[in-house]
Structures are given as C-alpha cells and as structure tokens.
C-alpha cells in the first residue's frame, strides 16, 4: 500500500481547508436557495469582447503566444494603465499577462518570498494570500483592519507589523469582502512608511474599476517613489465580467517582472490565447459598457445597504468592489453560526466574515452581483429571520 502521508508535502497538508466547505455543501442540496454568496459579476461578458474572442478563433489564432503575453495586449495594458491610473510601464519589460490576477499573486510571492520571510496581510481580505505565503515558506503577518477605520490599512498598524524580516506587503484594495478603498491621502501615509525600506508592495487592484461615489481608484504605484517597489496586480474578471476567461496581469519593475516571467514561463507557458485577443477589445472599446455596469452596481449597492440598515443590521457604505459587509454582532451569534442558521431557516446563502480572516468575526459578506429583485427577496428573508430571532 502506498503511504500518502509520505507522498504529500507537509506544507500543503498544513494549509487549512476552508472551514465553511460543509456549509457550502448543505446549500448545494437545497432547491430554493437564494444566494448572495458569489464573488463574480452576474453580467455576461460584453458582446464585443466575446466577438473578439470568437473572431480570433475563426482566424485560427489558436497557438501559444509569447510567454509574457501578446505584444499588442501588453501595449494595450500599458496604454490603459497610463490612461486610468497615470502610471507608465514599458510593455516590453514591465508587464506580464497571467492566468487571472491569482497567478500574478502566486508567482509574485514565489519570486520574492524566501523561507522565514514575513508577508504582511491586512485582513479581512481575499482568501489566497495567506495559504500562498505558507506554501512558499513565508510567514503571514496578519494586520486586522477595523470597522472604525473603515477597514483601511493605517500607517500605525503597518509600522507596528514591520520587522527586519518583512519582505512583502499585500495591499488588497478595493477590498473583498469589506468594500473598503484606500484614497490618495490614505496611500500617501502608507507610502511614507515604505519609501525608506526594502519592502515590496503587491497591490491587488482587481476591483479598481469598481469604486463608487465619484472617487476614481488610485494606485499606490502612481505615488512618487512607489512604482519601483510595487507590483500592481490587476485583471479582466471583475471590470469586464470575464471571470471564466482567466486573464490578469502584473505590472512592476523590470527586475522583478523578469523573474516572475521565468516562473510563468515554466509553470504556465502563456495565458490563454483566445482570452488575450478578447482582452484587447475589452480595454479599447468598452468604457461605456463598463460605466453602465458600474452604474447598475451602484444602484444595487445603495439598495442592499439601505435594506440591511432598515432590517437592523448596521451596514456601512462599501466604497468599492461589489460586496456589502454588514455587522451581525447584535444577534449575539458568531458569523458562522449566523450564516448556518440563516441558510437552514430561510435558505439564504451569505459568507461568514471569518472566511476572510479572524477579523471578519461579527460580519457577513453579501454580494450584490444579483438583480435588484433577487436582492430584495434575499433581504426580505433575512429580515424575517431576524424577526423570528427576537
């Protein structure tokens, strides 16, 4: 008999499986679940983007591209980064097209973090940073951001977390699940802490196109002296409703991008070719469609936030991404307990805040990537659930 205990990598075995898997499985068995649980747009990929993908297939563009990605796409990304975020990147050396933002994060951490290096991770945040850090032998150093700071990373908390072993700061804004954003003045303070250090920022800006209230996203790489110490990770999934196309990119100093490209070259070869052609169309001809989707998200955001507050769950205005993050503390339940009971009693699926780090205790994440009718029905059921509790 083969001994899998001896086969499997202890580092992998040490990664804790998502504690809420069981509860996901329960939802799968229910017929009339109304979910606010997903982290991806409900809009289909805009037609002109799909068409560009189809056209590339018709023209037999079905082979590998350059490891870094199509030259034309890298040039398009460079122009986009300049136009949107006022950052200049050399498409030949400072941009790598990846399989989703996820690959950029993975390869970015693998290219930089050595055994024992510390990676600072503000939480609650997206679930991948901690396990990947562990896989590369790094030590995750979690900063728990606080509701009273609007879940922003503060310079005080950052300064307190930095040690001589700190290698990387993950900057996950606009933030899934909290909806927090970092405005220019917030970023200035973070930049001031980092400028004289040898710490690299991996800035996960996948939700950059989704900020509300007239404040356009600011990238920390656009601040003086920061581009040389920042890898900007972005992608097509959220802004252009292209989750299934698996396409993202990393922009940063050529010294680092060259090394990330080596990992990408051996592990992946190149990002999907069809997706790359579609992505060029996304960045060049879709401003209007993207603005329309953002407007729709904004209306839903206002609706879901008002509705949570009306049924008595305090919910601050998320400033970016597409999630509401209301507090459920007043129910006296833990986040997981709340979500399990809500699912059992009303068949409504939301994600416990603790799925995104211990600091998410007392909160739930409710996605508003759903029609207004769907959101209203879900909130009606949550309202009933709360009434039946009291």
């Amino acid at each position, binding site marked *: 008999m083969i001994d899998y205990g001896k086969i499997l990598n202890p580092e992998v075995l040490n990664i804790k499986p998502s504690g809420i898997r069981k509860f996901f499985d329960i939802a799968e068995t229910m017929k009339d679940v109304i979910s606010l649980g*997903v*982290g991806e747009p409900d809009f289909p990929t805009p037609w002109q983007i799909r068409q560009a993908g189809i056209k590339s297939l018709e023209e037999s563009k079905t082979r590998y591209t350059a490891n870094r990605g199509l030259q034309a796409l890298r040039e398009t990304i460079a122009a986009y980064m300049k136009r949107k975020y006022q950052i200049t990147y050399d498409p030949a050396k400072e941009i790598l097209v990846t399989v989703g933002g996820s690959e950029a994060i993975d390869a970015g951490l693998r290219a930089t973090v050595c055994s024992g290096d510390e990676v600072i991770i503000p939480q609650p945040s997206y679930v991948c940073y901690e396990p990947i850090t562990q896989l590369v032998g790094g030590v995750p150093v979690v900063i728990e951001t606080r509701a009273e700071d609007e879940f922003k990373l503060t310079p005080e908390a950052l300064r307190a977390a930095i040690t001589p072993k700190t290698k990387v700061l993950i900057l996950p804004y606009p933030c899934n699940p909290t909806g927090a954003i970092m405005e220019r003045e917030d970023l200035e303070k973070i930049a001031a802490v980092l400028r004289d250090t040898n710490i690299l920022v991996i800035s996960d800006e996948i939700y950059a196109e989704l900020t509300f209230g007239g404040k356009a996203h600011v990238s920390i790489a656009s601040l003086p002296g920061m581009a040389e110490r920042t890898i900007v990770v972005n992608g097509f999934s959220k802004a252009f409703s292209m989750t299934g196309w698996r396409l993202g990119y990393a922009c940063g100093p050529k010294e680092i991008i060259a090394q990330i490209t080596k990992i990408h070259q051996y592990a992946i070869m190149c990002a999907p070719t069809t997706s790359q052609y579609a992505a060029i169309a996304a960045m060049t001809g879709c401003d209007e469609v993207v603005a329309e989707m953002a407007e729709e998200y904004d209306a839903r955001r206002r609706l879901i*936030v008002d509705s949570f507050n009306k049924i008595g769950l305090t919910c601050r205005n998320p400033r970016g991404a597409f999630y509401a993050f209301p507090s459920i503390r007043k129910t006296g339940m833990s986040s997981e307990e709340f979500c399990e009971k809500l699912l059992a009693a009303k068949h409504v699926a939301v*994600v416990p805040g603790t799925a995104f780090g211990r600091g998410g205790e007392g909160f739930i994440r409710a996605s508003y990537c759903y029609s*207004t009718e769907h959101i*209203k029905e879900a909130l009606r059921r949550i309202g009933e659930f709360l009434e039946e509790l009291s």
Partner: protein
Amino acid sequence: MNIKLLKLLNKNARYSMADLSSMTGRSIEEVAADIDELEKSGVIRGYKTVVDWERLDNSYVSALIELKVTPKARLGFEEVAKKVMKYPEVESVYLMSGSYDLCVMVKGKTFQGVAMFVAKELSTIESVTSTATHFVLRRYKELDVELCDDEHDDRGHFSF
C-alpha cells in the same frame, strides 16, 4: 439626476418609492416630486406590464405592416401616421428610413382578422400606395424583457 430615475423605472416600473429612494440616494419626497413632474411634463407617458400571452390560452396574433406612402398636399406622412395610430388594433407606428415609410405593429385575435384590418382599413387610406404584412411567429424578447427561460444562473451559491 432624472436620467438615473428614468432608467430605473424603465427597467421596472413597479419599484417602490422606498427602493427608488435607496437606489438614487435621494429622499422619498424628492423622488415622488420628480416622478410627478416627469409625468406632468409628458416625459413619462405611461406604465405597462410586459405579458407573455402565449403562456395563457389567451394568445393573439400580431404583425408588422410595411406601409408605403406617397404624400399628398393634404395627407403627408405626419397626417397618415396620425390617422393610422388612432386605430385600437395598432400598437405602434414608426416613420422609417429605407424601402418603406411607415412601420405599423398591429394586433388582433386571428390571422384573418389582422389581414382583413390591413385590407379594409390601412390599404384604403388615401396616400397609402402599398402594404406588406409580416406575421409574428414567436416572441423571444419584448421591451427588454426576455420571454424564454433558458437563461439560468450557473455561478453556484458560493465563491470567494
């Protein structure tokens, strides 16, 4: 911004004042006053329900009629269009560019009824030089609303 309000109502005329207030970020009173004003000034012309009659035994037939019109001194396009639109059988009338002049959507209980209406009423109008009738066989989408149910949310219940 009334455009935002109109877009929302155009999508769903049954949103409550409270929903509209939430979604536009304005007070219920302001939204109500705006709607009132939009109705009075004629920007909002009415509220209707999109019905898929084929799901009932109460189905009807409709047709697109191409009208060619040779305008005369007394009966120009405008006059013909206004005359046509008064028939209760007529759902919509558009002045068109291209190979014909007026596009008329007509509704009736039977194919025969619609055909007779075209022959007896539309084609006899002075200035109308020809008609072509195209019956609608199936409706897939009407007024932005999809009438077939093959779309479903394939995203599952959870993802991070």
